[in-house]
């Protein structure tokens, strides 16, 4: 990437917190959000940051410019065909990204009935009207994990890190896992049945049910 292969990319430097705030700002319909982080960090000199004063206390803060991605691709455990989805386990900036993006593509482990989503509205990621596409893709987060559905494929990461050290290795990796795999079915086939079995998590650990009675 540093050498601009195949073409240069523009990079905005962020910390984990500032990129989360940039997404949150966009999702809230704001042009920026203030923060106390990164006030002494050299990357906060970029044009997507601005030093500001609190209008009440006068103290120095950092403004983080909103980032509205053109598209967010998010993987969930359950979605209905309208994009209403249940996500559990790791959240990170998933909700912020879903609210911020101009289009949201959901991939899901299970395509479920609308009725199942209504059974636990507190677990809905975002209302379906923010979602533009739903894709049913078992192991759709591979090689990353999905709580309850897939373990992390540590070996796959090790291989990738090894191969992507050289341009040739990376291209070879791309050829095999992207171009020749063709689609998600091809990718899963390439992964092989044995490996997929090994990725399946262990004993079920179900959450305690909650009662929504009225």
């Amino acid at each position: 990437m540093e050498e601009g292969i195949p073409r240069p990319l523009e990079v905005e430097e962020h910390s984990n917190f500032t990129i989360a705030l940039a997404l949150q700002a966009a999702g809230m319909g704001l042009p920026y959000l203030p923060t106390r982080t990164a006030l002494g960090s050299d990357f906060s000199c970029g044009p997507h940051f601005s030093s500001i004063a609190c209008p009440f206390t006068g103290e120095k803060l950092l403004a983080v410019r909103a980032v509205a991605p053109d598209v967010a691709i998010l993987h969930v455990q359950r979605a209905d065909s309208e994009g209403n989805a249940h996500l559990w386990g790791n959240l990170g900036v998933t909700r912020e990204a879903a609210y911020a993006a101009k289009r949201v593509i959901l991939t899901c482990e299970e395509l479920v009935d609308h009725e199942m989503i209504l059974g636990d509205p507190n677990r809905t990621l975002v209302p379906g009207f923010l979602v533009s596409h739903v894709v049913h893709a078992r192991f759709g987060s591979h090689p990353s994990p999905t709580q309850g559905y897939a373990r992390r494929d540590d070996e796959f990461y090790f291989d990738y890190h090894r191969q992507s050290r050289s341009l040739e290795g990376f291209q070879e990796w791309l050829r095999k896992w992207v171009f020749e795999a063709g689609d998600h079915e091809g990718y899963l086939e390439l992964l092989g049945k044995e490996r997929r079995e090994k990725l399946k998590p262990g004993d079920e650990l179900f959450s305690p049910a909650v009662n929504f009675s009225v």
Partner: protein
Amino acid sequence: MDYTLKELMVVAAAREIRDGEIVFVGMRLPLLGFAVAKELHAPRAVGLFENGVVRDWPALAPIFTMSDPPNICRSLSCGGLIDVMSLLQSGRVDLGFIGGGEIDRFGNLNTHWVEENGRRVRLPGSGGAADIASLAGRCIVIMNHERRRFPPKVRFITSPGYGEGRGWREGKNLKGGGPARAITSLGIFSFDSESREMILSSFHPGVSIEEIQRETGWPLKVSDEVRETRSPSVEELAAVRKYDPKGVWTNN
């Protein structure tokens, strides 16, 4: 009349909702209007409540507040207040319903205080109304039409309409479109696209334009195409009564 005034108002509110729209729903009449619209011409409309609830079908049972369990249960999404307000602030809400203690000729609403017999009477304040009035794509106002509630200029702007007229909202950087309609107990009003002043577009059956003028605190503008408000159809009335079988909200 084989329907009540409030049934007529509910039906008028329902007609403002287009299919597929994202609607910030209030309680009482707009809530019923949303249910009627869903039942009839807008099955794909989605309702937002400021407590964080998003519903694609009406509540399981009659409710007094948006946080009553039948409005939460089997909702599409139940997040926080800031989640739904973020949708509003980012321009993703097509319309919202609000009411008020006073409304003026530019559709500004006051729900903070009024004077009665020389004494200042405190009203409930904004609630979510100022947010909807500021930020929704368009606003529908529901009001009881009495002269003391229709001054030429409200004493306090809680929920902004068009302020002092054309250009005022833009000057304030208000992103929402402002009031599109006022549905009152006497008629239905739109707002002039140039002057932004309230214009009578229809009078309810049995109400005269003169009566409406008498109950309005400024010289009323009347649309060239003014007509009688269309009565509820059989289907519309059936839908209203399905969701308010005991007339809790719609008995006069």
